[in-house]
């Protein structure tokens, strides 16, 4: 078990009254940055390495070099959308569109078939002197079905591709991450499960991009 973790667990045992102290202690650990690296001894405890940047431009350049380094399991967290970040990260167009398309197409087909079966086959009824079935009057409902099922497709496809729902993410335990990524820091996170990950090389890569604060995220 890492020294940092021991520290934390000790503090945890100290009880709730000590919560404020614990926070500041952890923050101190975080801000020491490089020095703490020795504390983390075995790689299996580390979930990811995290480079913290102060400006969107720095994070974007870092993302470019991580992309060129061939990493796959990594992400950039920013407090607001940064234009051009998807290109800097080398992200391809999302595949969610296909789920939406399949959902929409099946919604349209189901809508048309449903109305055809109801009005022209199962229970014929003449309304307003119109034909038993006509694509014109069936269209508005089919159109609504298209929207409904493509929305379902989009939502389910998005959750599926993002591997959601996910009950736990180690990043959310990290104070630097939680305070920075939603406020004023631009954070590049590379997971240790990445095939290209190696403790030294990855840290070197982040250092080269001018990162002043590198931190390991515990699992």
């Amino acid at each position, binding site marked *: 078990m890492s020294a940092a973790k021991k520290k934390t667990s000790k503090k945890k045992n100290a009880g709730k009254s000590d919560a404020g102290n614990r926070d500041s202690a952890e923050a101190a650990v975080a801000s020491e940055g490089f020095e703490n690296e020795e504390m983390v001894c075995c790689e299996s405890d580390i979930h990811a390495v995290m480079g913290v940047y102060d400006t969107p*431009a720095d994070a974007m350049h870092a993302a470019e070099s991580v992309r060129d380094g061939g990493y796959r399991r990594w992400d950039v967290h920013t407090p607001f959308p940064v234009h051009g970040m998807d290109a800097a990260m080398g992200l391809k*167009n999302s595949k969610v*569109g296909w789920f939406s*398309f399949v959902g929409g197409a099946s919604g349209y087909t189901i809508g048309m078939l449903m109305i055809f079966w109801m009005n022209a086959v199962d229970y014929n009824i003449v309304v*307003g*002197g*119109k034909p038993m079935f006509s694509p*014109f*009057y069936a*269209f*508005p409902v089919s159109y609504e079905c298209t929207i409904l099922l493509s929305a379902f497709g989009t939502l389910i496809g998005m959750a599926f591709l993002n591997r959601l729902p996910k009950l736990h993410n180690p990043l959310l335990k990290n104070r630097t991450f939680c305070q920075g990524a939603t406020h004023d820091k631009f954070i590049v996170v590379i997971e240790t499960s990445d095939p290209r990950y190696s403790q030294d090389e990855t840290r070197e890569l982040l250092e080269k991009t001018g990162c002043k604060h590198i931190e390991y995220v515990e699992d």
Partner: protein
Amino acid sequence: MMKVFKSITLLVAIVFGLTCGLSAKAAEHQGEETVLHAPIDGGNHGSTTGDAMHDNHTASEYGPAGEPTFLKKFGYSYLTAYMFFLSICLGSLFIVLISHLLDTQWIVPIRRYLEHIACQLFPTMFILFLPIMALAHVIYPWFSADPHMDHALHAKWPLFTRPAFYIGSVLLFLVWGYLTRRLRYWSLQQDVAESPNGGYEGRDGLVEVFITAVSTKFFGHSVEERPSVKCSRMMNLHASYGIIVFALSLTLASIYWMKGLQHQWFSTMYGVYYFAGSVWVALATSYLISLWLKTNGPLQHVVRESTFHDTGKLFFAFTVFYSYIHFSQYFLIWNAAIPEETFWYVQRERGSWWWVGQLLIFGHFFLPFLLLLRIDTKLNLNVMIPMGIWAWAMHYFDMQFNVMPVLYPEGLNITVWDPLCIGFLGLVLWIRFNSAFASFAPYPQRDPRIAETMGVYVEPEGSKNAPAQ
């Protein structure tokens, strides 16, 4: 200024010469023109005469416009081509307006040439409208109908009276002229607003003076600002009332000039329908012009990928919007099944007009919709260049579908006048556009968003990293 005046005079002379020549040539046919309106009322209100008309397939069967005389053939072809080009001008005006209203960055690099296209509404499009005014009594069947005999005409009084038509038409052009000129004036002023060489005037027009007076008097606003900021504010001001004026004037124009061909008809969707088609074709045109100006010169480093992508996306959106509107119009009429409304589509399902309708369904909607559904095709020039040209063709057939069945009820009838009118109007507009484009800077030089759209980051003044002044 002198040059502009000369070219306008020349244009007037040419157009008048042509019209007078045609009128003289057609004077021989004058006698036949008086007996045209019998089928209008019968065809639309009385089902017996209507059926008789359908059963009686003889050579003498005319549409609501009566016998297609020489002058009528020319007038209808000219009207079709005119409405086509009017769409592009109005659509461009709309894009300029939303650019100001929504403070978009991607329209900024292409805004200047869109302003020039919009400025063609006056005086060029007005001068080109003169033949339609001169031939209005030939083109529009209601001109020779009697409001005492024709209930539809009576019910729509005073919209469909001669003075209202002429005054209304002229007013539309004046309104468009004022709006487009003021928008371009402030845009051009912004170019020189902070230049050391001077050239900035910033003269307030009627609307500016009025609104400034009102806001100082009643709200106590007194604005002290830099000239370039004032230009932006003035463009926003004109766009803010302009969008309402635009909506009303476009609706009136489409009703007067196109829907008025069959004045008995009702459709509350018609203005929106023409609007949707107009913006659609204007976006396709804008895509092609941007591409042309990017590859051949002045906009090379200014128009970037995001502009093309967003033009393509908006084009795609208007593909859907247009078909939504057209379907709604058809569906409401189909569902209500009232003879006063259905006759319009019944006529357009006769002969080869049925095929033109199918072409609009599949070519105006399904083809662009399915092709552009993928996000990356909006940047694929192998798709987008043919698509732009296809959009012109589709919009032209849409105009044919609206105008021509009145004259040729049996089906699509392309005469020699169609290509001639398109060629003439297109050529005149192209020359006028080119001379306007060449006279001024090709894109807004000092727009607050120009750096952003060119992908340059400029430190705001007063920030710690800003370069020293």
